[in-house]
């Protein structure tokens, strides 16, 4: 366990130990199985990778192995909602979105089906498998679908809470999480509120809006900025759609400088959602920590984040650029 020493004006966030967000999904799903008998799980040959083994073991009659056939999985999930089931589909983010976009569009989104699309191994931090599997476009695709809720939680505890929260939400949801072990720092017993931003650190000089693995990096960046005398506000916008627009506007009004940080292409991601909101309500200078319209490549997760500029250092540079 690492206890981070922080400046006393700063909020304390303790990493209680590195753990993967997909394990948060697995744990949340398993608990959900006990609480809600209508929850069913479908998986396309990635039960171990999605951490769905516990659900499968506890509820074999509600677990559906569909094999390597994601399009069929999406259709079956849509059909299973007819009669009151709440299907959670599990595969990698790439195969949860781009591969099956039309099935999601017609059979789930347009048909208004209560399917929860649960997507692991999102972004560059999938690592060594390389660009074929590292989707950086999924948030864009999913947020463009009318009625789709899009969530990218920041750590194990929040992913677990979000997994449970989406079962109580009527309508399709895209839940995005990842493969690598990352700091777990949000509250263990939290309740996830869809569409509600989480202000992790207040500050007056620059707003850092982050999602997923980049939230911890944003907190690290805020500490580095603090040492340079810059008070950064750090907000976790785990729900990208519907976006907590009030939180975005209020913070931008206070700081008049915005950095967005995400493990996604800058086309179609969180940054664009924030920019659209601010363009309409409070035009603000903004910098984007995101991939720059590129595919990824093989490498260790931290090497990739470094190479593609998705870390605390990159956030600091962008913040200073805005304030410089």
């Amino acid at each position, binding site marked *: 366990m690492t206890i981070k020493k922080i400046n006393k004006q700063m909020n304390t966030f303790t990493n209680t130990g590195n753990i993967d967000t997909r394990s948060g999904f697995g744990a949340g799903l398993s608990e959900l199985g006990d609480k809600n008998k209508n929850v069913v799980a479908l998986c396309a040959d990635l039960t171990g990778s999605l951490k769905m083994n516990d659900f499968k073991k506890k509820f074999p009659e509600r677990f559906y192995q569909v094999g390597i056939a994601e399009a*069929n999985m999406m259709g079956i999930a*849509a059909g299973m909602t007819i009669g009151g089931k709440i299907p959670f589909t599990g595969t990698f983010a790439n195969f949860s979105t781009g591969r099956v976009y039309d099935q999601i569009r017609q059979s789930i989104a347009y048909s208004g089906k209560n399917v929860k699309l649960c997507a692991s191994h999102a972004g560059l931090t999938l690592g060594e498998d390389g660009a074929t599997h590292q989707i950086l476009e999924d948030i864009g695709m999913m947020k463009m679908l009318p009625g789709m809720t899009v969530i990218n939680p920041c750590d194990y505890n929040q992913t677990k809470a979000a997994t449970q929260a989406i079962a109580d939400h009527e309508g399709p949801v895209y839940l995005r999480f990842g493969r690598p072990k990352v700091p777990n720092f949000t509250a263990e017993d939290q309740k996830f509120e869809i569409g509600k931003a989480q202000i992790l650190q207040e500050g007056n000089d620059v707003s850092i809006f982050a999602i997923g693995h980049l939230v911890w990096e944003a907190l690290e960046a805020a500490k580095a900025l603090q040492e340079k005398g810059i008070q950064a506000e750090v907000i976790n916008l785990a729900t990208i759609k519907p976006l907590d627009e009030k939180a975005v506007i209020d913070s931008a009004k206070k700081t008049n400088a915005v950095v967005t940080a995400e493990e996604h292409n800058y086309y179609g991601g969180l940054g664009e959602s924030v920019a659209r909101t601010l363009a309409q309500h409070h035009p603000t200078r903004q910098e984007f920590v995101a991939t720059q319209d590129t595919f990824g490549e093989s490498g260790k997760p931290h090497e990739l984040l470094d190479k593609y500029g998705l870390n605390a250092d990159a956030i600091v540079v962008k913040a200073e650029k805005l304030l410089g």
Partner: protein
Amino acid sequence: MTESQNLEPFVQQVRRDILRQVHAVNSGHPGGSLGCTEFFSVLFKEVMQYDINFKPDGENEDIFFLSNGHISPVYYSVLARCGFFDVKELNTFRKINSRLQGHPTTHEGLPGIRIASGSLGQGMSVSIGAAQTKKLNDDEHLVYSLHGDGELQEGQNWEAIMYAGSKGIDNLIATIDHNGQQIDGATKEVMPLNNIKDKFTAFDWQVIEVNDGNDLDQVRNGLRKARQLTGKGKPTVMILNTVMGNGVDYMMHTHEWHGKAPDDELLEKGLAQNPETLGDY
């Protein structure tokens, strides 16, 4: 199944509805609709057990999915004529602010529709999902689905066919409208399907063939046999040999009327071949 009745007048009126719907907006798909008119009529008038007060969840009733959504004119006509909504609403087909979209959708809340279809190849998976939920709910009613033969060219079908055979989805009766035609021509020229029966058999399905899917008694017998095969550990498919455009002579035996509406003159000709029986909408 209820008692057989004289469905000829019903079928004839549905044919008129199909022609009038597509003519009014100079768009839509009459060919496949006419080819499946007898099937829809038998299914909804004699075979399926359903609540006319439409419940989207479809619990404790038989449910139907149309995968080849472009034949919406026959679907809408039969739903309306069975009482799901007022037949006058057929006037709104494909018009602005209508619940009768070009392809069926749940989005506008039209009674009778439980899934959007139109982008082909998705209905088999949806039907399997609904069938699985019926099993979880201890609901012994059946799931019926209809698919075009050309639609089987979409790969998702074969994922679904493999799944249903392997998992023994035995409360599902899928019907293939085998008319041998698709937009660009005959299926055997565009992308041959060859022996559909052998393909399904290879995937562990039970197969029934209906030689003349435009003969009401043959459709009845086919569906009766299909029902008898349910609950035996395997899914059932009924290959329904139909003639596209059936009942309107100039539309028969060609793919030309897949997605084209008749002009005024041809409308009158088609209607004359199918005199009014139950009253036009």
